[in-house]
């Protein structure tokens, strides 16, 4: 099938010039007349009972307009898993207990930020300190203090998967090994710290501008926590400076802004600082992972026993989804007959972990892929050969999940072997240098409906006008990953209208069709793309009669919508401009506008995802055996994202993913002291790699055509963030002999493993 020309082109982001020149408006840029500034008072203790709060002195400070504590609020618990109300464990402001250093206790509204901050310092809170827990092992130990009374053993959620005869497979296997792995917390470090502005109208309506990746989820949860009908809450977003999973829930400042705006009758803004984000913000789950695998003599993977303890921090946040997905990522990449997964989401007294690019997969893959490399070595097989023996292929079934409708995994392995010079470099080994491999697969959006929406998962509304322009309205959330451009490419491809003639509205829950679950799980291109195609198809049906009657066409003719024209496919001379066609259709409809809505919810695609991406990555590193420093020399990537809609966007995703993977593997780490306070709260000491740390890269797109995706597309956002850690870890082993099973790979760990320091 031949795709329209605009599919697969490298179109620079339509929003890029405004962002690069500083003209783009972000939430913190919004200033409304009479606007107040909000500040949050946070808990200094990791675990404590609140005995008393006195806000009198704060209230008395000139310039302070309002102070609220938990008792002033409706106290409705919230969380994204509306389907399981028991999992909704968060309150906007703590009522009885605080559960991590940074838990929100009170909020102040004042004329300026300085006064708000001074007022926070005047709030007196008397705490009764409780014993705090900082590791999953302590949390599940017998007699451990309870963080939430409702969750005995501090386990909030358990996910099990089991099929095949595991015991028999382990008993008869040629080779069995078991390993334990640990991974640490890192942060999204989106460039734009969270911010929001709320404005109340007509007493009980509220508009919230917020830096979010899920406007619809924020609308619903904000309404329920305020005790208002959903329709009284309007959520808008302006430009968003990144999210990576860190902005996909209702957050306390969003509630406090709306609540204070309703109480004071004045608009109100909250803006977090970078230090707030690093000290208290969401992060990737640390995990303790046990994995046992069995292989036949030939290297066929027979069974896997995969047990994961997720360190969720003080609240569930998106942890339940990560707990589910970890199990699914454990059997998505390789085909084997027996699998058992036990995932447990554990509370600790740390800032809550949540979704972060890869949603459980970077952790699961670090363990599983490192174990594949260990097994290959002991089986005497090349690590790529071992993967080729076991790789998933098109038509294979991920048991109890789905049948894979397109899979370019084996091609990816072959291609990455080629471009990295794998065979030659492994034969001619240079001291201090090594090559390592890591692989991934990822979902293209989730089928699961834990949010329990009654609407379709995505929706788009297309309007066309008699001047030949179009308007696309959808709630798809561009947080920097590019759907504002990609969705217009898809509409342009389907309707033939030039991309620059499409106005996009994507930022307003009151002006876009319901619903859209937002940006997460790499769902936007596939799910919104399909909704756009459906809406465009309906518009084409409205326009077709104009041509059929104008040219007196036989009903067997096909029409083409290309280059701002509509014409008869078999006889392109029978043609009119799109503008003329819309004009005539409007005349024929006596002025009834040409508007159509499209929707998408996956059907008959199992309960995880409609499509799966695959890929393989090779890292080439140098390790300085004296200093322990690892330098990534080059990254090689071959991946299958179906048909890329915008090649430049896919390249950008790959570069960004390598940067995040590099930080995760080698530098980034949130360091907490014994009281649960974060010690590195600036970019000086939270070591995120900069552009100057980026290694050169080489990549190949393995093109497959995904039948469920728009024009054959699949995800390219999160999967690429998965393979870097195991690839670098393997390369470090090949370079110096240190086998990392506990991230990050620091110079100190390398030197300790080499016996150079104690």
């Amino acid at each position, binding site marked *: 099938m031949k795709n329209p020309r605009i599919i697969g082109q490298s179109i620079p982001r339509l929003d890029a010039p405004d962002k690069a020149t500083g003209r783009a408006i972000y939430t913190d840029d919004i200033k409304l007349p009479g606007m107040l500034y909000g500040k949050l008072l946070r808990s200094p203790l990791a675990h404590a009972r609140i005995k008393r709060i006195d806000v009198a002195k704060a209230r008395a400070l000139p310039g302070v307009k309002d102070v609220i504590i938990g008792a002033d609020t409706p106290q409705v618990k919230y969380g994204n898993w509306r389907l399981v109300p028991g999992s909704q464990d968060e309150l906007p402001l703590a009522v009885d207990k605080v559960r991590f250093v940074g838990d929100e206790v009170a909020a102040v509204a004042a004329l300026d*930020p300085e006064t708000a901050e001074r007022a926070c310092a005047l709030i007196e809170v008397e705490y009764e300190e409780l014993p705090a827990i900082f590791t999953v092992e302590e949390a599940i130990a017998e007699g451990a203090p309870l963080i939430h009374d409702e969750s005995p053993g501090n386990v909030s959620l358990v996910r099990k998967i089991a099929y095949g005869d595991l015991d028999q497979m382990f008993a008869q296997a040629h080779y069995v090994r078991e390993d334990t792995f640990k991974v640490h917390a890192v942060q999204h470090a989106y460039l734009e710290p969270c911010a929001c502005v709320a404005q109340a109208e007509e007493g009980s309506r509220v508009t919230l501008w917020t830096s979010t990746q899920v406007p619809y989820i924020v609308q619903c949860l904000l309404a329920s926590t305020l005790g208002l009908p959903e329709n009284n809450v309007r959520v808008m977003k302006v430009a968003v400076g990144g999210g990576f999973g860190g902005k996909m829930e209702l957050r306390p400042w969003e509630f406090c802004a709306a609540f204070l705006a309703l109480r004071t009758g004045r608009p109100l803004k909250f803006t977090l600082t970078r230090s707030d984000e690093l000290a208290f913000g969401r992060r990737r789950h640390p995990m303790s992972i046990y994995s046992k695998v069995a292989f036949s003599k030939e290297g066929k993977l027979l069974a896997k026993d995969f047990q994961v303890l997720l360190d969720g921090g003080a609240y569930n946040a998106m942890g339940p989804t990560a707990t589910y997905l970890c199990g699914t990522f454990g059997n998505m990449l390789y085909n084997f007959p027996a699998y058992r997964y036990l995932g447990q989401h554990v509370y600790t007294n740390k800032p809550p972990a949540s979704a972060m690019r890869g949603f459980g997969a970077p952790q699961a893959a670090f363990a599983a892929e490192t174990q594949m490399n260990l097994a290959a070595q002991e089986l005497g097989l090349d690590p790529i050969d071992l993967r080729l023996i076991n790789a998933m292929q098109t038509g294979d079934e991920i048991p109890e999940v789905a049948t894979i409708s397109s899979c370019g995994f084996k091609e990816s392995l072959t291609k990455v072997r080629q471009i990295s010079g794998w065979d030659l470099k492994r034969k001619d080994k240079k001291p201090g240098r090594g090559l390592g491999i890591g692989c991934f697969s990822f979902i293209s959006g989730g089928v699961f409906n834990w949010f329990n929406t009654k609407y379709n998962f995505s929706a788009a509304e297309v309007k066309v006008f008699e001047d030949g322009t179009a308007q696309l309205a959808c709630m798809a959330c561009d947080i920097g990953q590019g759907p504002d451009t990609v969705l217009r490419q898809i509409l342009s491809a389907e309707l033939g209208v030039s991309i620059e003639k499409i106005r996009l509205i994507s930022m307003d829950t009151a002006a876009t069709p319901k619903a859209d679950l937002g940006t997460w799980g790499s769902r936007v291109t596939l799910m919104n793309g399909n909704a756009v195609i459906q809406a465009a198809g309906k518009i084409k049906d409205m326009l077709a009669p104009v041509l059929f009657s104008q040219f007196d066409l036989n009903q067997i003719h096909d029409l083409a919508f290309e280059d701002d024209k509509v014409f008869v496919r078999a006889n392109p001379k029978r043609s009119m401009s799109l503008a003329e066609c819309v004009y005539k259709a409007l005349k024929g409809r006596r002025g009834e506008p040409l508007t159509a809505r499209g929707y998408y919810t996956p059907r008959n695609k199992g309960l995880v995802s409609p499509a799966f991406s695959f890929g393989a990555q090779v890292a080439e590193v140098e390790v300085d055996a004296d*200093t322990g420093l690892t330098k990534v020399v080059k990254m090689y990537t071959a991946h299958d994202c179906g048909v890329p809609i915008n090649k430049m966007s896919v390249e950008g995703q790959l570069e960004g993913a390598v940067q995040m993977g590099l930080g995760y593997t080698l*530098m980034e780490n949130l360091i907490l002291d014994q009281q649960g306070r974060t010690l590195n709260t600036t970019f000086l000491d939270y070591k995120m790699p*900069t552009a*100057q740390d980026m290694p050169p890269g080489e990549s190949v797109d393995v093109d497959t055509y995904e039948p469920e995706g728009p024009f054959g597309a699949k995800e390219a956002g999160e999967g690429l963030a998965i393979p870097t850690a195991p690839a670098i870890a393997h390369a470090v082993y090949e370079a110096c002999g240190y086998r990392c099973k506990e991230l990050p790979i620091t110079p100190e760990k390398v*030197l300790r493993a080499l016996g150079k*320091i*104690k």
Partner: protein
Amino acid sequence: MAMPHFTVHQPKTLEQALDLLSRHRSGVKLLAGGTDLLMKMRQAGLKAEHLVSLNRVEGLRTISYRDEDGLVIGGAARLADVGRHPGVAQHYPALAHACSVMATPQIRNMGTVAGNLVNAAPSADTAAPLLAYGASLVAVERGGRRQIKLQDFFRGPGLSVLEPLEIVEAIRVPAPPARCGSAYERLSARSQVDIAAVGVAGLLNLDLEGRVLRCRLALGAVAPTPVRCLEAEQMLEGQAPDEALLMRAGASCVRSCQPIDDVRASAAFRRAMVQVLAQRVLKRCLALAQGGAS
């Protein structure tokens, strides 16, 4: 944290600057590049109602090198300007290297060498090279002018012997003799845009027979102040610098440091790196000194 309000004064001469300092006495701070000062005011609660800027004081940004006088770095000379000054690049490679890799390009464009020293952070990148080169500071106050050897300057983290009403007018660095090599090595988690977890600077000066006439080694970020490694210096001076001796001397530097465990590195790692970097620095110094002799 909110930034308190303050007044900035921009004197044209040192005399005016000194007058402003003594007129306001308390609650006044000197402003050069501001890269440390403003962070302290914004984040660490440092209070100052008056800032006296040195940036328009005539002549204070001058950098000059003459074989007979050595190097003079004005009190407001920028790190980036010092790093790319031809005299510095040619005669003081350790200092040029420190000035061109420390912090970030933006900070190097604003921050000054004098400010880097006066701030007295144990990790100050220019301190170890300047210790190795035997630098002094020229401090002026209303009553007069004094010269302070850099090795006597630091008193502890953030502390120096500079008096509150003194201004660093210049840093003077003697001209390096013939047959001299110097180098600076630093380590940090990020390859660029980072603070040093360990820094080592060295200088070797050979006599006509190729023996070590003078050796200077200095460490950053591994003690409460930048420190010299007297033991290693003494091991080398008067000796023929064979590889085994360089290795032993480099290893002895570990005894000159008192590193701590912190979020940037453990004490054990820092100790090990002092040895590795000192050995590398000495090898490099020797190669340069020998190259210069031929």
